[in-house]
Every structure is written in structure tokens, then in C-alpha cells.
């Protein structure tokens, strides 16, 4: 009975149902979404990693890469130091030239690669070993390249390979592998040469980075791909299992050098992973493989210790042997996960509700607004005639809704209002299309103008909503003045699109969806302020100022100031990502976030006119 009466109360109280309840629900969604994420590092919500693909058998083989191989390693190293590129015999060697241009900067280089044909193999499958001349941090990868060459000579002796092994030596970690893998699938642009030599379907890729001379302590495993794609968790687990279990080398991830398995460290690891995933840039030479559904990781020795290059070589040998065991493409384990420690993770089923709740808050508000526009909020006496709810703060009838209409609806006994859709729909879709302009600008202009363009855009973001709001409030000269219902509809459509985009995005790139969702959270609660001018003006000006702090360019400037990275570097990288890696973070920023933010500002700005 209590429930029944509660529902009856709700039904008789549209103010609560359509105005207050959605606000409460949306707010709850956001809070629960954030709290959910914060719960993930706890033991009850995360899982111990495990190897799902039995064929991998990590660390089950003895690695023989020792002894006199080290002499050859030293020999090759001296040769490479003398910059004579001469690989061990028996490999099919080929080169590939490429050239990219992005933001007015040209990138060119030449990939050298060699293939060990699997004895008895039939060129249907292959594993890739990459050693770039320059690491992701732009250091000379001397030991890495030498190690790859020595391993190439060593692997040639074994007859157990069931897959071809391809050794790729790109000149750098940013462009080389991308050019190579694009050409491998024949999807390369015209500035990239096709590959003269090919093998079969690629099953996995390992990147070796060893740019310093001293012995190392731990192995840092980098796994983030372009657009937040991740390699199969089995590959990461295998690397951890081999490094830790077989070789006795600890494994780190996400630059967490001191991880004491505490809640704070776990959360920090998750958040670092989410930042990289959300920004969606390539974190190393391995990242370019991910869009082609080739699982890849980078192995970086770190720290000061007593493990030498041969230990890294044995780790790679053992990893190659594991990959060689694979009968099928890696598919058993997770492709969507958040790692918090080298042996703990949360899978998509556990973490997804977090971003979904945040995306859902926009949808809830959008639906509530849509329903609300179907009623005349100011004809409440007609709706709830005889109800016992006290209308303590009954809203003043809006001037634009004529008394005649109200009386008509009263007379008909109907509470349904006709929605005027043309203007809201045009405005919302138009503003989303305008998002293509900054997208084009920020991916096309020369890199030296990026900083200026960002500051100009901050200015545009201040002015543009005010102009739009003024135009809307005073009629566009062609149509009748806008009615309050249309403001609600504008907001409804904008939030609906935002909710839709973010919930879809959450399944592809959880972190990006989560971050944009949080940054957009205020938009749910922004509305056109009504009331006396003395109250309206200060509040809307303050609101606009706060909103402008959350605009995409303002956030960029803020983050750059906080991290100390120049804006130009970030935007050059972003444009490079767009042009070369096929990164679509900017599309989300300019075609999802920015339009939604702009509409929020327009609504707030319209209270001033």
C-alpha cells in the first residue's frame, strides 16, 4: 500500500516526476559511476589473472639462449655501433621506404626487415619481433637491435618453429611499424612503399627496447594500443608469467616502479592505464599492430639490477616459443580489461557499469525533458485538480505561452502539448556538424600555429554561445520568437545524443567515455535561468565562466599547464595520430563533447537575453 500511494503521489506531482526526480537520478548515476570505479581496486571486485589459452604453456620450455651467444651479441653490437647494417645469413631481407606528412612536419624513414622461414612451415602464420632503432622515448635502442639480430641468428638453428618469425627494424617507434603493418595488409597510403617480402597471417608481435648499457632489474610491459585497444590479456599474462615465474624478473606496468599492492597503488595504476587508453595515442612500436587484431606488447628493461641482455633474450625466446605453440589466433582471454597490478585485473563486465551509469545520466535527463515538454508545466491546477499536493513554489506562467493556449488545453481537458521540433533539431544537428570545423582545423594547420589556434578557440568559445543565445532569444528574423519548451527540447536532444554516443563509446573505449562523461556532467543540470534580472544576470555570467573553464580547449590548456607539456607538442602528436595512426579521439572531442558543451553554454547564455 505504501508503494501504491507513493506511485500515486508521484503521478499526481509532475513537478517531482519531471523536474526533481530526473535531477536526483542523474546525480545519483554520476556519483555511483564514480564510486563504482573507485571500488574496482578492491579484492572483491577484481580478479587474479590467469592463462586462458592452454596452448601457450608459458615458461614450460627451457630457454637455451646463453653461453657463447653472448659473444656473438657483443660482436653484433660492435658492428652496429660502427653502423654497418648486416644481418645474420639465412634470413630473407628486404627494405621498405616510407614518408608521412602531418601538421607540416615530414616523417620519413626506411624499414629493414628479415624473415626466418619456418622449417617445414608453409608461410601461413608468422610472429613479429620488432626492435626499433629509436625507442618510444627517442633513445638509441642499441642493445635492443643487437639482441634482435643475435636472436635471429640463434632462432635460425631451431627446427621447431611452426610459424615464420619476422624481424623488423624500423628507424623509430612512431612511424616505422605503422608503415610496415599497413603495407603488410596492403592498406598503405601512396607515400609508403609496398613490401617486397611477405609471410602469412601475423599471430603476435613483441617489441624489444633496451636503450641503456647497465644491467636491469625489472621488465616494464607496455600494452596500450591506438584508440585504447588492448592486446589479448593472455599475451600480457604470458609475458608476466615467463618473466616472473621462469626468469625471476619482476614485471611492472604503467610506470609504477614501486607497487606495494595497496589500494592507492592499484587505483593509481588503473587511472594511469585509463589516461593512456582514453587519450588513445600509440605508446610504442607495438601500438600500431592492435588495429589489425594482432596482439602486441613492448618489453622495456628498467632499473638497476643484475639481469643482463641474455636474460631478456631468454625471456623473448620463451615468449616466442609460447606464441609458436599457439594453434589458433589468441582469442580465449579478455580484450577489454583494466590492469591494476601485473597479476590483477578487472574485466569489462565489472567496470563497464561505471561509464555506462555516467552516460546513462544524460539519457535519463533527456527522456525526462522530452516527457516534460509534452505537458504544460504551468497548467498544473488542471492536471492535478483536487490533488492534495501543496504547490508551495508554483512556477510563474511563462509569458510566451499565451493564456489562450492554456485555457484551450484546460477546456479540452488535455494535458498534452504539441512539441515544436524543427528549430531544436536543426540547431542540435547543425552544432554537431559545426564540430567538423575545429576537427579539420586542428588536424590540418601547421604545427607552429597550434598554440595560437587554441587560444583563439578559447575566445571563440566565449563569444559563440552568447551570439547564438542572442540570435535565438530575439528570433532569427525569420521565425517566431523561441518558446521555453524549445529550450528544453534543445537540451533534451543534445543530452540524448551525448548519452547515446558515450554509452556506445563506453563499449569501445571505456576510459575516453568515462572522462568525457565526467567533464560533461554539469551539462545535465544546466538550464535556462528564469526570474528577476538581478538574479539571472550574475548567476548566468558565473555559470558561463565556470562552463568555459570546462570547454575542450580550456581543459587542454589546463592539462598542459599542469603536466608541463607544451600545447603545441600535444596537438602535433594528436594531428600525427589522426593522420598516421588512425586515432579518433579528436572526433569524440569535437563532434561529441564540444557540441554538447556549446549547447549547454547557449542555454545558459540565453538567460541573459
Amino acid at each position, binding site marked *: 500500500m505504501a508503494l501504491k500511494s507513493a506511485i500515486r503521489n508521484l503521478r499526481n506531482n509532475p513537478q517531482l516526476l519531471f523536474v526533481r526526480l530526473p535531477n536526483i537520478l542523474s546525480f545519483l548515476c554520476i556519483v555511483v559511476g564514480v564510486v563504482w570505479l573507485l571500488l574496482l581496486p578492491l579484492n572483491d571486485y577484481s580478479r587474479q589473472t590467469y592463462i586462458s589459452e592452454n596452448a601457450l604453456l608459458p615458461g614450460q620450455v627451457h630457454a*637455451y*639462449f*646463453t*653461453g*657463447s*651467444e*653472448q*659473444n*656473438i651479441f*657483443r*660482436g*653484433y653490437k*660492435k*658492428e652496429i655501433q660502427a653502423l654497418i647494417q648486416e644481418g*645474420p*645469413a*639465412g634470413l*630473407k631481407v628486404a627494405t621498405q621506404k616510407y614518408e608521412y606528412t602531418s601538421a607540416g612536419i615530414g616523417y620519413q624513414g626506411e624499414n629493414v626487415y628479415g624473415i626466418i*622461414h619456418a*622449417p*617445414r*612451415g*608453409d*608461410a*601461413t*602464420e608468422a610472429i613479429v619481433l620488432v626492435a626499433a632503432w629509436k625507442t618510444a622515448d627517442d633513445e638509441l635502442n642499441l642493445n635492443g637491435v643487437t639482441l634482435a639480430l643475435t636472436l635471429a*641468428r*640463434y632462432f635460425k*638453428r*631451431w*627446427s621447431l618453429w611452426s610459424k615464420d618469425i619476422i624481424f623488423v627494424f624500423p628507424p623509430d617507434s612512431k612511424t616505422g611499424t605503422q608503415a610496415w603493418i599497413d603495407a603488410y*595488409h*596492403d*592498406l598503405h597510403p601512396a607515400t609508403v612503399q609496398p613490401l617486397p617480402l*611477405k609471410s*602469412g*597471417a601475423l599471430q603476435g608481435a613483441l617489441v624489444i627496447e633496451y636503450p641503456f648499457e647497465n644491467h636491469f632489474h625489472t621488465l616494464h610491459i607496455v600494452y596500450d594500443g591506438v584508440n585504447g585497444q588492448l592486446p589479448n590479456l593472455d599475451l600480457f599474462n604470458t609475458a608476466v608469467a615467463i618473466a616472473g615465474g621462469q626468469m625471476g624478473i619482476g614485471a611492472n606496468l604503467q610506470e609504477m616502479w614501486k607497487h606495494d599492492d595497496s589500494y592507492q597503488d592499484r587505483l593509481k595504476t588503473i587511472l594511469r592505464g585509463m589516461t593512456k587508453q582514453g587519450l588513445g595515442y600509440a605508446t610504442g612500436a607495438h601500438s600500431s599492430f592492435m*588495429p*589489425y*587484431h594482432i596482439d602486441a606488447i613492448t618489453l622495456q628493461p628498467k632499473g638497476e639490477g643484475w639481469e643482463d641482455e641474455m636474460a631478456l633474450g631468454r625471456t623473448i625466446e620463451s615468449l616466442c616459443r609460447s606464441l609458436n605453440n599457439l*594453434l*589458433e*589466433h589468441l*582469442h580465449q582471454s579478455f580484450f577489454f580489461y583494466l590492469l591494476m597490478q601485473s597479476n590483477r585485473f578487472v574485466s569489462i563486465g565489472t567496470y563497464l557499469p561505471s561509464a555506462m551509469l555516467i552516460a546513462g545520466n544524460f539519457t535519463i535527463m533527456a527522456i525526462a525533458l522530452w516527457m516534460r515538454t509534452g505537458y504544460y508545466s504551468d497548467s498544473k491546477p488542471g492536471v492535478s485538480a483536487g490533488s492534495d499536493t501543496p504547490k508551495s513554489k508554483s512556477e510563474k506562467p511563462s509569458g510566451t505561452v499565451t493564456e489562450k493556449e492554456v485555457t484551450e488545453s484546460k477546456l479540452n481537458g488535455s494535458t498534452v502539448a504539441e512539441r515544436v521540433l524543427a528549430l531544436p533539431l536543426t540547431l542540435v544537428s547543425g552544432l554537431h556538424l559545426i564540430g567538423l570545423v575545429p576537427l579539420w582545423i586542428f588536424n590540418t594547420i601547421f604545427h607552429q600555429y597550434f598554440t595560437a589556434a587554441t587560444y583563439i578557440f578559447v575566445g571563440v568559445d566565449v563569444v559563440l554561445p552568447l551570439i547564438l543565445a542572442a540570435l535565438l532569444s530575439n528570433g532569427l528574423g525569420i521565425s517566431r520568437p523561441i518558446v521555453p519548451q524549445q529550450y528544453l527540447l534543445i537540451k533534451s536532444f543534445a543530452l540524448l545524443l551525448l548519452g547515446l554516443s558515450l554509452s556506445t563509446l563506453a563499449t569501445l573505449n571505456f576510459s575516453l567515455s568515462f572522462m568525457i562523461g565526467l567533464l560533461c556532467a554539469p551539462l545535465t543540470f544546466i538550464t535556462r535561468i528564469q526570474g528577476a534580472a538581478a538574479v539571472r544576470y550574475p548567476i548566468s555570467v558565473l555559470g558561463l565562466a565556470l562552463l568555459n573553464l570546462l570547454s575542450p580547449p580550456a581543459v587542454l590548456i589546463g592539462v598542459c599547464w599542469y603536466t608541463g607539456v607544451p600545447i603545441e607538442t600535444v596537438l602535433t602528436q594528436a594531428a600525427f595520430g589522426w593522420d598516421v595512426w588512425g586515432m579518433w579521439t579528436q572526433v569524440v572531442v569535437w563532434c561529441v563533447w564540444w557540441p554538447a558543451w556549446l549547447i549547454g553554454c547557449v542555454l545558459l547564455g540565453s538567460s541573459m537575453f
Partner: protein
Amino acid sequence: MTVYSLFSFLLALAVTLWSSPVSASSDYHEQLFLQPLPQSSLLASFNFRGNTSQQSFDNQHFQYFPRALGQILQHAHTKELHLRFSTGRWDAESWGPRPWNGSKEGGTGVELWAWIDAADDEEAFAKWITLTQSLSGLFCASLNFVDSTRTTRPVVSFEPTGDHPKVDGLHLLHGTLPGEVVCTENLTPFLKLLPCKGKAGISTLFDGHKLFDAAWQSMSVDMRPICPSDGDCIVQIEQTVDMVLDIERSKRPRSNPIPRPVPNEQLLCDTSKPYNSHDTCYPLEKASGNAWSLQEVFGRTLNGVCPLADSDEQQSVCLRVPHERQVFHSEGAVEQKKADGFTRCFSLSSSQPFDLSIPEQAVQTEVALEEPVLHAERTIVGHGQERGGMRIIFGNPSKTTDVDFILFESLPWYLRPYIHTLQATITGPDGVPREVPASELVTGTFYRPAIDRERGTQLELALSVPAASTVTLTYDFEKAILRYNEYPPDANRGFNVAPAVIRILNAPDSAPIYIRSTSLLLPLPTPDFSMPYNVIILTSTVIALAFGTVFNILVRRVVSVDEAAALGAQSLKGRILGKLVAIRDRIKKKETKVE
């Protein structure tokens, strides 16, 4: 200095065999060719050939022709048969042209083609199925999986090599199993077909461990009738095993097969390097030829000669190294050097075991390898679950002559090619690629489109590649979505696509040259197979819950308390009444039925 390669030698031999009238109607030959190849490889080519007169074959009087195979062929009305088992790939870049010009090798896995005598296509196919099923049992291979989807009827790619009195009723059928792994279980039945069954003669060298450790290996069985113009027809069976062994690897003893790093003092270092020291070594590759012996490479010695082989032709082992190279052989064998400066053959003693030993030696002359007539590479390009593309590159290394050839592709039905997307790019000697219409290079097309789950695509293209040019052919295809029960257990591995067969037409008189591309792996859209399980569990739960509730609602009567009391009181009376009514109804029904 004129240099004939081993392959021309083999070819010349084959041609002589074809053309020369065979004297004896029933005889048996066996021969082994050995040739060291670059990069410490050794080509070993075994050939066994037996003849039986057609008459005795028809009367089921088998002497050198294996009875097991002969009866199958007679039962399936097969007039000519070619069966191939292959693993690995021939590295034409290092090893030159293929042995027997590629006519005795197949694509990766198993390949079978045969001319069957039948009245019409259906009958031919029925006999073909009989043949594949029987051969499957005979050779322990999955040949029974050659069904209609894997069977094609090539039009121009293959021609009968035997002499057939009537060609009209012969149907050529061709089937491949690219995913078949060839191993010892196929070797044993293969050896059983030989007259000496691996007990004597060159076939004693076959050791499964060594044979299947080879970098490339091909076994073939060919049966064909030969009818000389003067004389009776004979039926010939020819069995061949070709393999390329890695000498280094084969020499490793069975007791220590792991290629551990060698001790420091055994490292072969480039001492001219300034940094060369006790712990730094730039490795040298061996300049001189490797030392090897039959014993080391094959793990056993050659056990005499097969007594059934022709007595007048004793030179059953031939080796192709420069004459200046030292070769030691065991006692009892006689060495004979041929005039070409590279070939030497050995006449074996029938009783003593035979071994060859070649020491390490720096030599001046090398056996020159011919350039292959055509390079071909076929790969799948593109990415994604829905579409892909095929790219085939043909390189003509010759500076002067064009190459005409036929490309034969048999594609599985789930790979649906779009032939209208066939495009050609030609890169001339200047190295500038330019697109040309495919019709400019393709002089003839035979295309038989696939029917889902019934037959695969058959595509035969007659092509021409100009001198010193590279032609790239591409076409797009769509990937079909299979039914869930059509996926193999290792669905995520991908699906094998049979190698393309290339038949080079340049020399019309001599034996044809065949090249086969590598097989391909086609990833198809694959469902998550744990998902159906989850769905079944979930639906079962939902149905159980729904059924329970609905059943409950249907059966349970909701009554008030006083009604319930009345019901309880009435129960006995009600029951009796109910029984009565039931009996009455039955009688009434009967009455109505009677009426």
C-alpha cells in the same frame, strides 16, 4: 663453361623415358640424386619406377605394380593418377628451379588429380569419390574429405601425361587438402608400395625422423599408361620423394638434438675485426662447403641394392658436386664421373652397405643454379571480418622472353571472389608501376562460380608477363558467414585456402613446368563459441522461471477463505459428482459414436 643443372638432367632423363620405346614390358628402376644447395642444404631426390604390361595389369597380374593400388585404380576406372604429399616450401630464391620442373610436387598438404573413365559427369564423380575413399584408407590421409566443395574439373591446367587410346570418356578431377599434415603415417604405406619395401636399395635411407625434419619435402605417386607406337601398352607407376635437408640440422645426433650454444672455443669468429676478443665475436658463416656423409644426414647407410631393380643399370646413386671436390665412398662401389664436370654416379655392390662422405673443402667452382622461369607469390591482403583481397605477384626475371602461363585457383565456397574487381598492375624494368586493364594481360579466362556448400570457385586464367617485368594481380573477395556447426574445432586458426597452381606454357614440346604458391590462411568471422553455452544456460533459466510462474497461475485457483471452507466440505460429494459426470460423459460419447 656450360652448366647443366641437376634439374635439366632430371628433366632430360624424364624426357628420354617418355620418348624412348620401353624395351622390357615389365621392369623396375630406382635412382637417387643428391645435390648440395646453398645455405647448407642438401637436395635428395629419390625416384622409383615400375612398369607392367597393360595386359597383365588388366588380368590382375601384378609384379612391380603394387596390387593394393592397382585394384583400387581398376575398381574406380582410373586411367591416370597423380597423388602428391608435400610439406614446407621450396625456396626458389636460394635453391633455384624446382626438381622435375615442379611436375612431381604438389601444393602444401595433399593434392590428387586423376583421369577417370566414365560415361558422364555424375558417374565420374561417383567413381572419384570411390577413388578418394579408397586412397584415404591406403595412404592414411584424410583424402575422404575431398568432397564436391573441394573437387574441381580443371580445363587447361593439366594434361594427361600418359597415352590414352580414347580421350572422350576421360574426366579429369582434381582435389586438394591444403590443411593436411603429411607425416610418417603417410610414408609407411608409401614405402609398402615399393617392391623392396624399404628393406634394400635406396629406399633404406628413409627415416621418418629425418624425412619430416626436412625444410621441404614432397612425395608423389604417378600412374599412367604408356603406349609406344610399336609394341604393347604398359602401365607405369612412378614414385618420387624429393626433400631438402638442412645439413647442419640433420647432422645433429639423435641423442643431443638441441642446438645449444656452442662452447666459446668452437665459435667461428671473424678475427679481422678490431674488437675480436675472448668474449666478443662477430660470427663468420662457413665459406667452404659443409662436410657430410649419408650416414650423418640420413642417420643410416644405404643397404645394398634392391635385387629387383634392373641389373644392367647399376648407377643408382648420383651426386652433383664439382669434380674437384673430394668424395669418399665405401668399398665395393664404383665411381663414374660424367663429362659435364659436376655429376658423378656410383654403381653399388649388391651386398655391401654404401656410404658417401664429403669432407669440408674450399672449392673454386660452384654448381651454378639456374634462374627460375617465373617467381610467384600469393597473399591475402586487407583486414576485417567482412572483406579481403587476394594479391598475386608474378615476376619474370628473364631479360628477353615473355612468360605465358596458366593460373589455376580453386577457392573454397566461403571465399567469394568478385571477378569484376580483377586488376593488374605492371612494373616494367624502369620500376614504375602502372595500372593496366586486366584484359590486357589475361588472354583467356575459365571461371566456374561457387555454389554455397556445394562447390568451390574454379578460376583458370591464361596470362602473359612481359620480359623483366612484375605483374601484380588483385581481386577482392567477401567472406561468408558459416553456420555454427560448419566451423572446425580450431575455428580461430582460420581456414586453409589451397595453393594456386601455375603451369608455364613456354616450351610446348618439353615437359610442362609447374609452380605452386604457398597455401593461405583465411580468417573468417568466428562467433565466440562460449556464447551459445551461456545463451543456452540463460534461456533455460528464463524458460524454467516463466514456465513455473505460468503453470502456477494456470493451475492454482485463488479463492476467499469462506469459499475454501465450502470447497473442503464439498470435497467428498464433489468428487463423487465429478466421477458420475465423467461416467455419464463417457457413455454419452459412446452413444454419439455409435450413432
